């Protein structure tokens, strides 16, 4: 199993599905950000698996994975800063109580 590209890709798909469930179903904004991190990790696993099993890609898969990790760090920084800024105004971390644009 560990020498099979399909196993890693199915694992990555399962992790992505779990992350998407968390993003759609959780009420807490930080839980949603954690689910986004899970989905980014799933995509990263798929990229590294492609790089490790397809000879034409060589080391490019790992380079792309490194860049994705750096962009994910930037995304987490800005996302958490936005959540903290909203929390300071609304006093709640629950996204379904952010309804100022609905009225």
């Amino acid at each position: 199993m560990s020498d099979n590209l399909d196993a890693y890709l199915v694992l990555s798909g399962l992790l992505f599905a779990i992350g998407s469930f968390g993003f759609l179903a959780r009420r807490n904004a930080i839980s949603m950000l954690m689910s986004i991190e899970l989905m980014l990790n799933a995509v990263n696993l798929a990229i590294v698996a492609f790089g490790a099993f397809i000879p034409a890609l060589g080391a490019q898969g790992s380079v792309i994975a490194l860049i994705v990790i750096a962009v994910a760090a930037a995304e987490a920084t800005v996302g958490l800063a936005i959540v903290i800024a909203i929390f300071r105004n609304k006093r709640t971390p629950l996204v379904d109580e952010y309804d100022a644009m609905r009225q």
Partner: protein
Amino acid sequence: MARRLIPILLALAVMGAVTGVAAIMLVFLGQDWDDALFWILAAVMLGAALLVVTMRDIIRCGLAMIVCFAALAGIYVLIGAPLIAATQVIVYIGAISVLILFAIMLTQTKDAPSRLVFQTQAVPAAFASIVIAVVIALAVGATDWGAVAKRIRLATDALSQLLFHDFVLPFEIVSVLLLAAVIGGVFLAKREPGGPS
């Protein structure tokens, strides 16, 4: 005293189950170490991910996320990319998890764990994510990727040659992006003088 023993017993039970599964796979099913490690790391990663999206206490969700990232780093080592695994440990476990735990401590109110965890759309969301998983699995099974049947172990010098020579422009752009994200994060989370509390 008994309540304190429960987590220790739980951890011992999990470790025993993992060791038992590994022993069964190695001794009785005749698989090698890589397969046993793959199954154990995959099970730990998916279990921790499920705990992240379902547990009520969000601090525990954050700690389960660290376990999930650590298992994923182990899978990177198994796949033959140790540099990615090291980056995963440094960036995700070292930096992003700490950032998320700090944000949790800054934003949670006292009654938050007793509130409802899921939105009303949780059941359709579960259905949709199961559909996503099945579709991805079917697509993976139906596609011929042209993959070799052996992992290509990655040489770090080849990777650095590629990163600092062929991909040097994306590398520099990412460094500028990180600087912009740091400044933007500080600006967004900063408390304005005279603003609300």
